């Protein structure tokens, strides 16, 4: 395939696909009011879940199965990345990302920042049912602490075992909570196995904060696992 056809065929194809998209675009009119699903959530979320953040309620409860799948995606990715990299015998070399030099400032800054970041992450996922943010965002923030540590000291080793334990326990607890929902409430992942508490307080919305905390831990652990797997080389293990 020569240069022109290699680029021209995709171009033509994408123009055609673009026309499909254009048809979607042209036929789209924003809704005036919430559709039935959304209006159900708008009116029932508080009553049913006790969460302020409707998105959180949907994610953790109504579409909890999706979210369970979602953390499983990360779990899978972490596992596979670990598999992929653990079994590629890297040549011995100096460790480190190689293009980001770690200066004194960064190292010191890291030491100070890491606990703060971790705390902030925890805050984000514990308040997920009240404010924007939640397990995923919080998990990402937790992971960024690990990232910072990696950047400042590329030779740093993390306990894979610990990460994996956190990840697994969180996941297992998540599943068990889900099953408890089947036993004691309306179905798998029903959040009402704990009292809904007072609306707007941190200990409200049933089991949502707990789940989001678990998700935060799990996601944080998974991100960390992926990052460390990508950074570390085999010979260091």
């Amino acid at each position: 395939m020569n240069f022109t056809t290699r680029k021209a065929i995709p171009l033509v194809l994408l123009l055609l696909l673009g026309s499909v998209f254009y048809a979607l675009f042209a036929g789209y009119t924003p809704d005036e009011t919430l559709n039935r699903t959304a209006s159900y959530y708008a009116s029932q979320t508080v009553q049913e879940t006790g969460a302020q953040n409707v998105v959180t309620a949907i994610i953790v409860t109504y579409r909890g199965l999706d979210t369970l799948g979602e953390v499983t995606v990360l779990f899978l990715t972490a596992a596979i990345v670990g598999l992929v990299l653990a079994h590629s015998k890297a040549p011995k070399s100096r460790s480190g990302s190689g293009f980001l030099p770690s200066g004194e400032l960064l190292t010191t800054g890291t030491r100070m920042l890491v606990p703060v970041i971790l705390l902030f992450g925890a805050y984000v996922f514990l308040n997920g049912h009240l404010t924007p943010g939640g397990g995923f965002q919080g998990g990402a923030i937790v992971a960024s602490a690990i990232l910072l540590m990696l950047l400042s000291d590329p030779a740093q080793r993390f306990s894979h075992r610990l990460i994996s334990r956190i990840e697994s326990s969180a996941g297992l607890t998540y599943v068990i909570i889900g099953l408890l929902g089947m036993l004691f409430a309306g179905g798998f992942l029903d959040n009402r196995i704990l009292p809904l508490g007072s609306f707007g307080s941190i200990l409200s919305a049933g089991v949502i904060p707990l789940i989001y905390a678990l998700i935060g831990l799990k996601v944080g652990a998974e991100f960390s696992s992926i990052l460390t797997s990508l950074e570390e080389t085999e010979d260091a293990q």
Partner: protein
Amino acid sequence: MVSPLLILAAGLGAAFLLGLLRDSSERMAFYLTVIALGFMSFVGLSWTVSLALGEAQPVEIYTAGARPPFAINLRMGLPEAALTSVVTLTGLLSAVFMRRDLMRLGRRAMAVLMVLIMALSGLIMTRDLFNLFVFIELIVIASAGLVLLSQDTRALGAGFKYLIVSQVISILLLVGVIFTYHANGSLNIDDIAATPMGFTGASLAIFLVLIALVLELKPFPANGWALDIYEAAHPGFSALFSAASGSAALFAVLKLFEAAGPDWAPLATGIGLVTFVGANILALAQDHDRRLLGYSSVGQIGLVLMVVGYGYDWDAGLYYVAGGLLISHAIAKAGLFWLSGLVKARKLSDWAALRQNPALVVAFATFIAMLTGLPPFPAFYAKWTLVHAMADYGDYPLIAIFLIAALIEAAVLFRWFGMAIKREAIRPLAYNLSHETVVLIAMTAGWALSFVWGAISGLDNLVTLVPLLFALLFLPLDILPARIKNVIAIAGLVLWFFLSKDGLDPLRLIFLTIMVLGGALLLLASFHAKGRRMGFYTPAMLMFAGMALLVTAETSFQFFAAWEFLTVGSYFLILRGHDSEPHALSYITFSLGGAFALLAGFAVASEGQFVIPLANLSEVAPEIAPYVFVLLAIGFLTKTAIMGLHIWLPGAHAEAETDVSPMVSGILLKAGLFGLFVLLMEMGRQELYGVDLTVLLVWLGAISAFIGAVLAAFQEDAKRLLAYSSISQMGYAVFGLALMNHLGWLLAMMFAINHFVYKSMLFLAVGGVKERTHTKLMYKMGGLITLMPYSFVSVLVGIIAMSGVPPLSGFGGRWIFYNAIMSTDLRLPMILIFMAGPVGFLYLFRLIHTIFLGQPKDELRKVKEAPFWIILPQMIFVAFLIAFAALPGMVLQRVDGYIGTLFGDRPLVWTGRIIDSQYGTWNPVAIWGVIIVVFVTVLLLLVWMNHNAQHVKQFNIVFSAERPFKPQTTHFAWNFFAPYRKAMGFLEMPVSTSFWTGVSNALHGTAEFSRKFYTGNGQTYAVQLMLFVVAVYLISMGASS
């Protein structure tokens, strides 16, 4: 009942639990995996069983304590339960299969596997569109991970291509999902069904969803990436990828097509059909086993997709058909992929290693039979029902395309099977007990499901048929010595004959006698085999089972199933021959082609029923009757090897084993004849475009009779000569039948009996000679008369009988023939028949002369008479021929009477031993008397004059004024009929061979050409994928406008 959600929870929980284990405790991790998968399978199976037995009702599983569409819900109905069982069980078995590699890679790999199975189950059960997407992504990621299990470094590239394509698919899917949500205000699949959109503006959204899901099914031609995975991945994973992922994705597609409404169904039908056809054609050019399996997977899934689109409103019927196909596919494909793990090298021919383990060969055969939809497997019922439904809708072109593609698929698979049976393995089979166990479990599951499908089919449950079970009995008995098995086989045949003979009309009784008792008689020859003779008795008994059932069949379904049994059994038998691989393939291809024509014929005839009594063929509506007739006739004529459809026969009959040749020639061909009998009896004359089809048959029969004889005269190979002669003889029989008068039918009957006797006898005799001389080329023999006198006698009697010279029974045939043609208006076809008669002498004389007369060769001077057990049946046949020639009435009179009731006339008058017709007389006893008296007198005269004749040595002849000393130059044998060839050689032009070769080359050429599009470049695959989407979009928009 435990909640089905536990399947998901158990999978996930166990996956997470694995993370708590130490890295080093792989063993424990593995056991945990197996236990979890076992539990998942248990839940799935228990639901399947309770739902199937009606003990449980389908349930909706709500999550989060809210009703759909506000929370995700799952469903567990019978299809869901069944597919979940398939998925989880495949997962369990694959886990066992991949034990070593899983242990090598550790608990993380096991977790990935578990998540994959969980996600597949979720995909099946979920009723939420976005949840579907999540599960698909899980499947994609887990699959990409498991691809890495393979030690093959190329798997890496394949996995990456898969990821590229999946990205594109998920983009399309997400865009589709969100716009569907926007249009419906709900993500629940059932809500989409409740508010059908059809081809309105919002339909684009559902189009994107559908096409994205269809792309997950690897539709042709947007599937290069999937094939690379099949080729490179670990076989254990490929089994999952094909069986479990394929089934789950297909069910997802089914759910959405059901939801999207009937307007979209043609899309599925079209894509499915194109995929089925395309994949099978491409598979023709494959030499790599796993890639071939990949193509086959793609094709099978395409087929089911087609059914999904076609039968979207059949309810239970859809699950029966699609389920039958899908479950056959799943078991067979998983089984084959697992088998491929035991075979060390990757060429198709390397599967020859399987022969080290007969059980695995049986498994291989089972899987191939399941894939090709042979009875008694579920796909057989499914195919039957599908074609009948298509016929009911009047979609005849669809039937044709479907059956042709199915035929190509069968050819691909049987080509492979042939290689496995006939080629030499380069590398031995891997020894792995757990792998073997897994394969055998799959095989057992296949048989078990055959029972289930048979039981729910509302038709006959084929697995419970006694003859079939009898044939299968020989699988475990195969460890016994051949002689013991032979005794059992003969006893079984005789017993079955006496059990089933009552209540049959004389015509059927004769066919039953030829097929079952005749089989027992021929089996006497099998006593000569030494050792165990593994793999002979099951196919042989399968063939006889098919024939026994064929004769007693009362409905179209029974008939067709029996037909398939005998076809398959005989294929395996023929394949046993020494150089029979290509011939067996051509045999099975033609036979299945013919069988498919039968299937189509029955389907068209059934007019909305799913099975009809054979007798109802006479009540088919007049406007479709001719087409039914043509289809059925094609099916039967393929079996009788009418000229044009004959090219499979010479090789198949000639290369078969000594005792198999008479079975497939003497007996098997009668199945086609029997079919024609039934067809003509029920349907009579039919006209198509003003052509009387029976006249066409007369012509075909005459042409076969003539050309077959001419070709036989030109053969150097004794068994090929006999094979071509069979074509000629069957031509006579077809001719007689098609005359559509009493005597014509009697003629056909006479030929059926005679041909069975003398062809069996001749094949046995020639086979016996071959056993001793180790060649089939006649010019290499010569002068064997003194060494093999009994064989000579049977050939002598055989050829006299066959040529129609009085006094032997062949003459009776000719006499009836002349009487028959006197009472028909057809004249011209007779010319060919008249020409065929003397040509018969040519090949017959050649046969006896070049083998038994002339000069014996030095290397054959010490050969012994053929083995006793081969001679014995021949002598019985000789005795029968003589008796039958003198007293034809003992067999024919009742048949004649019966045919008389059909035609309402009595053209023959049987007075004592004399048979009179309106035109002449046949007095067999008198003929015998005169000939014997004259012969003996003359002989005595000669003895009186010449009693002291001395036997002289071989070269005591004067040849060109000198004594020859080399038999090679003195035995006039090679190209015996050179002058005839000079004059009539143009008839030898291989017209039909070139035609079929051309068809085959065209298909292979297409395959070779098209597969070049699979460049191996991931980007190109992505481009093809999008091209596919755009093309389908344009086509469906064009179709809807």
